[in-house]
């Protein structure tokens, strides 16, 4: 029996990298969005420019489940190289759409799925002369066919093509024609629509579809970043590029053409963080964007910035490690290397956005925190958040918001004779005052160094001042605890002994898993961490639950380690649930793991029923 489902299915496109499929697939996804139906698109791509297999997956979810689901109900198999596996991946009762210009022996197909063959290559060969056009329009032709098969409003797709090519009007007509070609052919060839359908809805609201790297970069623009130094590395490259693109649009003086920003593509990640440290020292808001290998290279500078107390922002778009690892796959495996970056006793502030909306918010907030705390702030994205498009709350900005530049002594402060000790804890919060070079002709100059010094920045190797300084830095870290974003609590419908702690891109899958489990009678309270160091409520949450699962996307349960180290929690209380194959974590996976491991608990798992 073919799957019947309206606004709830997963469609996967299997393409060849570099074949121009990406823009056609995005057109398909956005058409559904324009019909008011929530979608969660994801790219699964190789570390390659052209020729290797690449997949694009769109989860259509009228209920708004935006995490990866797992499995595929409909596969568009455009890559002969991966055909066999793509066919295998289809759920029983699912659908296969493929290019039937090439003969496929029936043995390679399945009899428990619906097979939809369309001679795409033949159609395009007949229609177009140019080889490049044949290839590119083949993608648009299948989008047209899918519109017919899935009951997507063709007028909506047509309007989107018009919007997409605004300013390049010459491209509109040929694209519309290719779309129609596929649409009409499918209508004749198949019985349209099939069991999977898209029905107009109003479940999208004012949400936007964007990727986390774009959002974080835009956050940096709004947060007042002026200096960006970076070295190209997947999956963070598009963050620096988005900063450049947004600055070119928003930060160039209309009359003079002068730029209110400076971007340096450095010779390596070490130089990139060096530029950021130099700019931060000199009073500009500066950042770098990188991934795990870059964090490894930056360790020494991060220790300097911690010890010399220099504001800096690092966007870490995490990928699969260790070493070169899986450059185009997602993981949350830099948590510990970022939290304790560098030799000696160091601790850093980390922010964990869940989606592009929060990537924008934290992208701007990180600069206030860096200035306020005079220390590096890490914004921990991952490939899934950074490079995939997510349906997200629209970006918001309050025009009355002022940048918090932290404790900076002005010319007037110095002139009035205020005591200036660079490492003097005046306010008891561990955060000292600083001066920006060039402020006052005779006062406020000091020497910044990575070596030990006293409260007035004078070099010393004496134990007393060293310990005093290190203790003040620890005090400052406790101040950070109070300033960083609070965790988000999602309480179960019923009181429960089971808690779950998660963070970052796990959020949508976790939310859906909690719903699935609740339907089965397993109720869980979920706490989404948004920053390190942890506030008091994290410890309280753990104490209030008998068993706490820590769900994360790495092998070694890094956040669990951090919780134990930072809060002194009994390790037996924290059960690790780990997903680390490089694909985004799914609701199905979390549901299964939690269901399996909570069997020891008598149902219904509530405190009241514990005997």
């Amino acid at each position: 029996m073919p799957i019947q489902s309206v606004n709830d299915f997963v469609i996967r496109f299997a393409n060849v990298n570099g074949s121009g499929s990406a823009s056609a697939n995005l057109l398909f996804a956005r058409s559904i969005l324009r019909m008011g139906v929530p979608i969660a698109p994801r790219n699964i791509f190789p570390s390659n420019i052209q020729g290797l297999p690449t997949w694009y997956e769109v989860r259509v979810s009228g209920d708004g489940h935006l995490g990866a689901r797992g499995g595929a109900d409909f596969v568009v198999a455009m890559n002969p190289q991966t055909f066999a596996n793509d066919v295998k991946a289809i759920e029983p009762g699912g659908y296969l759409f493929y290019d039937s210009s090439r003969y496929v022996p029936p043995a390679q197909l399945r009899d428990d799925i619906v097979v939809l063959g369309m001679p795409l290559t033949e159609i395009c060969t007949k229609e177009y002369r140019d080889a490049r056009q044949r290839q590119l329009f083949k993608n648009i032709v299948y989008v047209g066919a899918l519109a017919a098969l899935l009951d997507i409003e063709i007028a909506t797709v047509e309007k989107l093509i018009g919007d997409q090519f605004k300013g390049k009007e010459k491209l509109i007509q040929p694209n519309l024609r290719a779309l129609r070609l596929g649409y009409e052919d499918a209508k004749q060839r198949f019985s349209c629509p099939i069991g999977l359908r898209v029905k107009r809805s109003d479940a999208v609201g004012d949400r936007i579809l964007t990727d986390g790297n774009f959002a974080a970069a835009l956050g940096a623009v709004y947060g007042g970043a002026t200096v960006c130094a970076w070295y190209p590395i997947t999956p963070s490259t598009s963050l620096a590029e988005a900063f450049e693109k947004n600055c070119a649009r928003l930060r160039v003086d209309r009359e003079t053409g002068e730029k209110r920003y400076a971007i340096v593509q450095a010779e390596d990640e070490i130089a990139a963080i060096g530029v950021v440290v130099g700019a931060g020292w000199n009073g500009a808001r500066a950042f770098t964007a990188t991934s795990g290998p870059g964090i490894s290279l930056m360790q020494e500078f991060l220790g300097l910035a911690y010890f010399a107390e220099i504001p800096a922002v690092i966007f870490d778009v995490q990928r699969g490690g260790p070493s070169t690892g899986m450059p185009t796959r997602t993981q949350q495996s830099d948590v510990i290397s970022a939290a304790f970056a560098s030799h000696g006793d160091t601790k850093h502030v980390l922010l964990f956005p869940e989606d592009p909306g929060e990537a924008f918010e934290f992208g701007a907030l990180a600069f206030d925190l860096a200035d306020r705390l005079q220390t590096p702030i890490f914004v921990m994205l991952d490939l899934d958040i950074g490079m995939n498009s997510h349906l997200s709350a629209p970006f918001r900005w309050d025009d009355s918001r002022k940048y918090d530049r932290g404790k900076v002594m002005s010319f007037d402060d110095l002139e009035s004779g205020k005591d200036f000790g660079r490492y003097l804890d005046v306010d008891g919060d561990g955060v000292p005052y600083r001066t920006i070079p060039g402020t006052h002709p005779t006062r406020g100059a000091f020497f910044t160094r990575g070596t030990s010094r006293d409260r007035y920045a004078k070099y010393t190797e004496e134990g007393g001042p060293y310990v005093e300084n290190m203790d003040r830095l620890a005090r400052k870290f406790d101040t950070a605890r109070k300033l960083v974003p609070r965790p988000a609590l999602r309480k179960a419908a019923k009181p429960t002994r089971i808690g779950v702690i998660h963070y970052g891109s796990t959020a949508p899958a976790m939310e859906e898993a909690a719903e699935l489990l609740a339907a089965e009678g397993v109720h869980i309270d979920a706490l989404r961490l948004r920053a390190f160091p942890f506030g008091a409520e994290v410890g309280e949450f753990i104490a209030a639950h008998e068993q706490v699962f820590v769900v994360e996307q790495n092998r070694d349960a890094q956040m669990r380690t951090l919780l134990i180290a930072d809060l002194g929690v009994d390790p037996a209380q924290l059960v690790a649930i780990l997903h680390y194959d490089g694909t985004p974590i799914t609701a199905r996976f979390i549901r299964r793991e939690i269901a399996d491991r909570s069997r020891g608990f008598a149902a219904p798992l509530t405190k009241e029923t514990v005997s």
Partner: protein
Amino acid sequence: MSFLPKPKFHHPALAVNALGFTHRDYEGAISTLCAGCGHDSISAAIIHACYELSLPPHRIAKLSGIGCSSKTPTYMLGQSHGFNSVHGRMPSVLTGANLANRDLIYLGVSGDGDTASIGLGQFAHAMRRGVNMVYIVENNGVYGLTKGQFSATSDRGSKSKKGVENLDSPIDLVALAVQLGATFAARSFSGDKAQLVPLIKAAFEHRGAAFIDVISPCVAFNNHDGSTKSFDYVREHNVALNALDFITGRSPIEIDYPEGAAERVALHDGSTITLRKLADDHDWRDRAAALAALEKHRAEGEIVTGLIYLNDEPVDLHARLNTAKKPLNEMGEAELCPGAKALAAINASLR
């Protein structure tokens, strides 16, 4: 090591410069380097150059890496902000500082280990980018702080204090700087104040990447007979290409060189440098000639000093990036934040 405060009082009749500062106002803490270290002479030359140029001390930012040479910013310009960063990475930190505020004067102090070994990459890219700075390498051909290992500028065949012979080719930092796009490249000797001070002054007035390699004998580890960077060796093998006199636009100094033997150069900012060529065949405007001169004298076992290459119309990093005239670190919300209205338009484009 202890911190030694220097008394602040001075003779009331001490001479002052155009800003009313005395020489003492440009000094720093008392040096803790070995007595007689060439680096202290270089610090003295820097102090003297800044005093004579009447540079406002608080508008100078002095940055360094790690090593004996990188300690010296503590011993000069006590009223300037300083930054002793990490080993070999001064150029990137200085580049960032420069991007944040284009109006300060940037002095980078480094050594041969800091620049030619661990920091060779950053040195190269700072030169390439044309960062507006004075980059001084205090070059003693040896690792001093770790007690006498060879550096990458040690000459092949030179011997360490322990008698070990260096078998690797040396790096000529001036030649590299010229190849990489430095618009001011010079070499001098720590003991030759008459040549060094004017070179530093000219470098400060240059609005691009100015590089000076200063041979600076290490009294502890590299001043013995086997070394090619000892006082005696350098004195015997020094070939000065030119002597340099320097005149600022603000306070012209009479030149006492005879006409014909001197060549005056108008600098971009209106100041003037005057060169007297000792080797009259050297044309410092010609990159190829600069490299050829370095190679020719190297082959003859001689050290070329003086201004070796100058392009007086440098296009510095800010000019290349077309950054605003107002320093980036002085900008606030009004200049930097595009506001809610622009954001609404961006949101609309993402639906």
